[in-house]
């Protein structure tokens, strides 16, 4: 090494030491990135926390960039989104990154939470780490909902309307809550400004504060060791044992423990970029114009399950769904580390926890699937736009054909499919003749019932007869028409009528 090189190195060291003496960087490093972790914690299962943080970072960065162009005004937001999509260089890509980053954040956070739950990481002494994580979950969902309103299109407009309708069900102070949510008596410019302030200032600020606390707690209380079946958590001994383990058999998080996190985060980033590039940004759909009443107001993925549940639960149970269930969920989530503070951590010794996770995934997964396919939403154009397959028409008598026309023109098919085409709010009518007989169908058409309106005032007796004779004919060949168990003495007559109709049924 020449004298010149030596001089350069000693200058660099001096500069580094100048900063070190003032900032105590070595100490800070040892307490943060270089903190010791148990060797067992460097697991592929422990990567979801950092992945959530990556998503949040993407959201902050893309959010700032979008805010350079986006105009949070009810009269201009839509145009500024169109500008981002079609005129602004890479605007569409940033919108897509922000949208998919948000969806991924919710999903990855859910995985993180599941892992922490199944690996018993919430137990003593990490109660507060779990609780701050639960708050972060709610903040993230709030960010997702308010972000959906930024996309100020008809879905956003009616989505806020749904939020208001739910708030309006709160006892006593419902009207006041609605007013505060909307920033006035009706959805307008104040509403968007309000959601904008929440979305870009209040909620991200709260997330930053909570993430700081969350990470501080991870450093203070240590990352959860990979649990072993049979090892019990004891309040009295856990912290001492953990210190000993980290001391004897630990390693610094950076660089030894972070490898899998880096790989997983790289993959996640690639996935988000791929989704952004190949699927693109969401909307905006038609403008937020209340005079365009053709919206179906579907929320983004993280809330679809809620809307599905609202559709599938029995009528009148909304108060339970929107207030009692969330309250129980909040109590269970916040209370978890206190209900189950010690004992086994490993999931193989906690069968109930495993069942809870499986049920939760099943319920939310199925409801989300139902939300995407939306079987309860009527197909508002089915009556005028959906064809009827020939086998449901062929061989019918003129009266039955008139009934077929009525089934179409009276909007029956908005809710009822025939041959799987049409709405699925009500039962498919393709084989209704095997389930219900003439008197039952007459009663159902005239009086309605279940989720069906009564058509009695809207059909002449002759029309009812035509419609019902068509419905009775709707059954596959070689099937028996429905009997009426309520009227056994007439069953002869009904079954005698059945075979006579056989040739007309099916195709």
């Amino acid at each position: 090494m020449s004298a010149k090189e030596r001089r350069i190195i000693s200058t660099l060291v001096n500069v580094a030491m100048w900063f070190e003496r003032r900032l105590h960087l070595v100490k800070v490093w040892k307490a943060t990135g270089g903190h010791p972790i148990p060797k067992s914690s460097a697991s592929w299962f422990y990567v979801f926390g950092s992945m959530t943080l990556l998503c949040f970072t993407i959201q902050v960065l893309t959010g700032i960039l979008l805010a350079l162009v986006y105009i949070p005004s009810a009269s201009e937001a839509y145009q500024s989104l169109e500008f981002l999509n079609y005129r602004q260089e890479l605007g569409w890509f940033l919108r897509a990154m922000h949208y998919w980053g948000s969806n991924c954040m919710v999903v990855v956070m859910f995985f993180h939470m599941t892992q922490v739950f199944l690996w018993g990481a919430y137990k003593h002494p990490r109660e507060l780490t779990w609780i701050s994580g639960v708050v972060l979950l709610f903040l993230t969902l709030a960010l997702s909902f308010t972000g959906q309103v930024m996309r100020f299109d008809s879905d956003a407009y009616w989505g806020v309307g749904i939020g208001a309708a739910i708030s309006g069900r709160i006892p006593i102070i419902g009207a006041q809550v609605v007013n505060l949510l909307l920033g006035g008596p009706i959805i307008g410019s104040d509403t968007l400004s309000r959601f904008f302030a929440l979305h870009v200032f209040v909620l991200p600020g709260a997330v930053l504060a909570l993430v700081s606390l969350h990470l501080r707690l991870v450093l203070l209380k240590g990352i959860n060791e990979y649990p072993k079946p049979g090892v019990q958590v004891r309040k009295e001994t856990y912290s001492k044992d953990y210190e000993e383990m980290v001391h004897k058999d630990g390693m610094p998080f950076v660089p030894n423990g972070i490898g899998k996190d880096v790989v997983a985060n790289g993959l996640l980033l690639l996935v988000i970029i791929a989704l952004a590039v190949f699927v693109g940004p969401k909307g905006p759909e038609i403008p937020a114009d209340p005079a365009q009443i053709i919206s179906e107001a579907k929320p983004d993925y993280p809330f679809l399950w809620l809307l599905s549940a609202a559709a599938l639960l029995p009528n009148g149970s909304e108060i339970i769904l929107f207030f009692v269930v969330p309250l129980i969920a909040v109590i269970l989530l916040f209370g978890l580390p206190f209900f189950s503070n010690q004992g086994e951590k490993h999931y193989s010794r906690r069968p109930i926890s495993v069942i809870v996770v499986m049920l939760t995934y099943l319920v939310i997964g199925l409801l989300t699937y139902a939300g995407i396919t939306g079987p309860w939403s009527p197909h508002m154009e089915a009556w005028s736009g959906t064809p009827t397959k020939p086998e449901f028409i062929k061989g019918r008598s003129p009266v039955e054909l008139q009934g077929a026309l009525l089934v179409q023109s009276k909007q029956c098919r908005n809710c009822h499919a025939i041959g799987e085409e049409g709405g699925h709010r009500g039962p498919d009518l393709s084989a209704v003749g095997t389930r219900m007989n003439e008197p039952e169908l007459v009663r159902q058409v005239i009086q309605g019932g279940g989720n069906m309106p009564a058509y009695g005032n809207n059909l002449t007796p002759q029309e009812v007869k035509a419609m019902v004779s068509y419905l009775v004919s709707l059954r596959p060949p070689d099937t028996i028409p429905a009997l009426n168990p309520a009227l056994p003495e007439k069953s002869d007559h009904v079954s005698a009528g059945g075979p006579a109709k056989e040739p007309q049924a099916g195709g």
Partner: protein
Amino acid sequence: MTPNEFESHPPASPEAKSYSTRRDFLLQIGLVLNAVAAFMIGLPIVGFILSSLIKSTPRIWFSLGPVSKFPEGAMRLAVYENPYRREADGETARLTCWVRRIQGDQFTVFAANCTHLGCPVRWFEESQLFLCPCHGGAFYADGGHAAGPPPRGLYVYQHKVEKGELQIKAGVLPTLASPS
């Protein structure tokens, strides 16, 4: 000076005690000053946040147009400018309601918001039903609940006919908590 010197208490000599009392006094005065200032600025800020609740705009009658716009026995979607609109409201100020002219000056004016979760209901002339696209709520021509999850019939706006014009009171998003 090490940090410990800040944390350690001064010796309890009479002189030091009065010194500490003066410090305590200053602290208390400071706290009171700050509390007064925080209250003075905090109260208006709370008022600012709740302003939409506190100042309630009086609901006025406004016209949906001449009665002749609405044929007897028919249901029509009326589009109107929110009378309380602001410039920045943009298209959201284009509000709607369903107007049913029963006969003569007999009207019913329905909000378009479904009573279940607020989605916009659509009128179907052929089946004489309002259908909601979200969860399949259905209402009869008189606004009555026909089927599905809505807990009540359609919301109705106050209306009157004056000088041949149909007038209503609206401009508030109807919810179960404030039906009209």
